[in-house]
């Protein structure tokens, strides 16, 4: 029975892993193909089924004059915009979440839960609904087609995620810990920074990870709010498409674009399992 259970477990894990990894392998294999290898039926294994070529990858680093595409600048733009927006979202989102979790706000019929809901309601609307006001506002501020404008917009989109995750997290940190910190001579700010925050690292990491993922993969706003001066990676990748779809360079750039997320996930995973709040309350 036990061996059967182990067998079932590994069977499904294997299936699932294949399901997750297969697209990456396929993209990897495609990135080394040329026009003939892509169009000439299903081929997967280099050297055996097709002759690998470096065309897909070299396009990414070749200068535009020699038929290359520039994804290096959009890459760094994306890193800069995503990191700044995520960092700001986490800072402000965490402060907002702490306030919503610990203090009572009243304004007419509005209570803490309503405010939390207002934050997340930003994400309920389809992005297209938000795009027009964003476009008009950024136009008014003269921030269209600029990194700063994108950072502001992404902050609006990412902060709800940070608030939502952190409110839930803080609600599970016993209030008595803050109270003990106050009794032990901390003012409310010290209580937050010296006691609550160090115990909230797992929550911060989860919130940060979600912000980075959602910021990094967004295509829609990056596409609508930029024209020529500033380009983000998802837009640059889509721009690779021409009359003949260059599957090899699309695959290569797709792999390049997910690489940072994979690295972040690997680093973060270790911290997630390490720090926990068990023992705070029994």
């Amino acid at each position: 029975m036990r061996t059967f259970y182990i067998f079932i477990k590994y069977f499904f894990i294997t299936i699932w892993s294949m399901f997750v990894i297969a697209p990456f392998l396929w993209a990897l294999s495609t990135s080394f193909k040329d026009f003939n290898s892509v169009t000439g039926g299903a081929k997967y294994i280099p050297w055996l089924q097709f002759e690998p070529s470096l065309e897909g990858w070299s396009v990414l680093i070749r200068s535009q004059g020699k038929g290359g595409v520039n994804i290096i600048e959009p890459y760094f733009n994306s890193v800069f915009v995503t990191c700044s927006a995520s960092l700001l979202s986490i800072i402000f989102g965490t402060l907002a979440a702490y306030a919503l979790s610990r203090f009572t706000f009243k304004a007419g019929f509005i209570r803490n839960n309503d405010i939390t809901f207002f934050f997340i309601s930003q994400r309920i609307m389809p992005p297209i609904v938000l795009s027009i006001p964003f476009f008009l506002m950024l136009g008014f501020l003269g921030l269209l087609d600029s990194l700063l404008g994108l950072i502001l917009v992404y902050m609006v989109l990412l902060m709800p995620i940070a608030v939502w995750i952190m409110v839930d997290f803080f609600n599970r940190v016993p209030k008595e810990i803050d109270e003990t910190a106050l009794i032990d001579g901390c003012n409310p700010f010290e209580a937050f920074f010296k006691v609550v925050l160090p115990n909230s690292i797992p929550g911060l990491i989860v919130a940060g990870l979600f912000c980075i993922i959602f910021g990094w993969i967004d295509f829609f706003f990056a596409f609508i709010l930029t024209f020529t001066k500033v380009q983000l990676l998802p837009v640059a990748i889509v721009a690779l498409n021409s009359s003949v779809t260059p599957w090899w360079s699309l695959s290569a750039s797709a792999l390049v674009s997910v690489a940072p997320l994979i690295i972040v996930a690997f680093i973060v995973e270790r911290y997630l399992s390490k720090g926990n709040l068990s023992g705070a309350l029994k």
Partner: protein
Amino acid sequence: MNLITKNLSFKHENEYYLNDISLEFKVGNLYTLLGRTLSGKTSFLKTIAGLQPLDSGQITFEGKDFNSIPVWKRNVAMVYQQFINYPHLTVFDNIAFPLKQRKMKSSDIKNEVSSAIQKVGLQGFEKRKIQELSGGQQQRVALARSLAKKAKILLLDEPLVNLDYKLREDLRNEFKNIFSDDLSSQSILIYASTDPMEAMQLNGNIIVIDEGKILQHDTAKEVFENPSNIKVAEITNEPAMNIVNGSVESNKIILNQNIQIDLPDHLKKIESGKYFFGLRASDIVLDDSGFQFVVDLAEISGSETFLHLHQDNLKLVSLINEVKNFNNRDKVKVKIMSENLYVFDEKGNLIFSPFKYK
């Protein structure tokens, strides 16, 4: 030099958490706040600490207005029922936290922390993380932190209630030793508890609280001997004191049509009329010459047996100091020790007690 609370009230959604509490706490004394769960004990302690808002009322300590001093400047210490520590710090840093916050010299901190650790018996655990300790040890850390602070006011909110039986007994016995220095060094210790046994054992002043109201404030002996009303009698006895609605007619106490008792000496002056009679469970004893009752339920607890008895509409709980097996519906004969009867008037106030009569 005393802590004085005047007319403290706090109401939330039409329910009194604190109802007009006026008390005076003298330094160097131990006070036990005795009440059932949700009676307002924690609210009161939090008010003293400054964590709970007040609708009205005044707290003064050492002549200073406490209301206007924020929590972090009040120099109180509090230990919660839950084991509250700082999970990201080691045992040493947990205990040192309030001292570091006070910007004490690190050599002084070391001395204070190690003496606190010594007192609660956690030597050798200094470098452990909180999660690596058992519940009892976690609560010892919290106690040590409150000791190391040398606070003027020590608030203990049912600190032992979440511990298992054996540990609770151990810590309770150590308790007075642990805090003896603080008591002699002019602090006020307020200990909240639901357990009358614990309150009697600590043997300080007892403050009985119910629904946010102070019912009685006296020494442990006085509260035990002369509970001021029925509520106090119920709260301060485990199991709760039996309260029977009866009457006195022609020098007899009538509990129901079968049970009539001659007036004991301390009730000779009682007038005829309707009363509530109070009788501790330990004052109902098995005796073949007594009244016949039917056993509803027999619980064995440690070396004692609780008997839930009834006869017609009269229900009593008896506490027998030995382990005996009974079956439900068994018939037993019990004697009511009438010399230990309490008498309360129809409003529930004490008029006669075996120890004092008015």
